[in-house]
């Protein structure tokens, strides 16, 4: 089975089978969209919540506000129906909690932005493993929509 690695800021997709994997989610949020009937899966690795004017050439998947619509468009392109899409989230951690640069950590801001956008598009979140202070690896099995989240020194979580 083919495994596609989704780097920071990227969006990748698969249909029918294959694994979409993102390694080393820290404050970033891994998002999966899945249409169970069309067997279409899309994964994004969101870096920051909002796109900025000083970053024109950024890939859409870098920011939540451009990434979520791009992911939906990609799912539809592969034959998914928007009303059947379901989302899962992992990541959004705060690896350096004592730095407290802002009242809300970047990880939390990312999670909130992603949730807000998904809700705006009417996409339910059916599983999540977010926040905390540890990094995560997320694997998305497109044949059945299962997502497994692993972390150092922790039991794997299925979401």
């Amino acid at each position: 089975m083919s495994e596609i690695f989704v780097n920071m800021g990227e969006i990748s997709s698969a249909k029918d089978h294959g694994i979409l994997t993102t390694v080393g989610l820290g404050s970033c949020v891994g998002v999966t969209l899945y249409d169970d009937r069309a067997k279409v899966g899309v994964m994004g690795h969101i870096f920051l919540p909002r796109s900025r004017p000083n970053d024109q050439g950024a890939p859409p998947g870098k920011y939540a506000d451009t990434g979520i619509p791009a992911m939906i468009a990609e799912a539809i392109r592969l034959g998914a129906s928007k009303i059947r899409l379901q989302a899962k989230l992992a990541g959004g951690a705060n690896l350096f909690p004592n730095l407290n640069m802002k009242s809300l950590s970047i990880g939390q801001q990312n999670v909130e932005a992603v949730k807000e956008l998904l809700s705006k598009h009417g996409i339910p979140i059916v599983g999540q493993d977010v926040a905390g202070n540890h990094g995560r690896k997320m694997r998305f099995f497109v044949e059945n929509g299962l997502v497994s989240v692993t972390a150092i020194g922790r039991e794997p979580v299925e979401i």
Partner: protein
Amino acid sequence: MNEVRLDFLKELANIGTGHATTALSQMLGGRLFQLVVPDAQMLPFREAADYMGGLEQTVVGIFVVISGDVAGHMACVYPLNSAYALIRLLTGEETPEIDELGRSALQELGNIMVTSFLNALSKMTDLLLAPSVPGLAVDMAGAVWESILAGAEVAGEVTVIRTRFSAEGEAIEGHIIFLPNEEDFGKIARRCGLEGL
């Protein structure tokens, strides 16, 4: 132009890391450290993720926010084995895991290295570069690295200065990474007599 900029970045890294490893050497009873030629790059964001390599490996990352005349971020990243060796040298204790004592020893070490690095740049430029209290994470290299980049809120290109160092007779190596704020980087260059970098 880019070449000049990169050479200048390498020179900064040499000076900064030279001071940082001297400070480390003093903490470790005069043990000698070797600097590997510094690597300075302006990476497109797309390539930044791969810069660290071994994204699933466990590393120790120390992260500092710089404020003052120059804003930016700094990080020290050590492979797990090197972190254990450093803890043993600093505390005299052999530990099977990184406990509270180990964490605070590494944090202190990061603090001293970063402060020495920034002091050297401050002296050279007469600009204030003040480090925050360091944050410390023991986690997957990928998660540590992307959290550092997200903390620095990098946009299109990332200016990374990285120096690897290793210790004589001990398997210790690490990276010191300096991510200057893009506009403020120009200030450092001007103070050193380089215009338009």
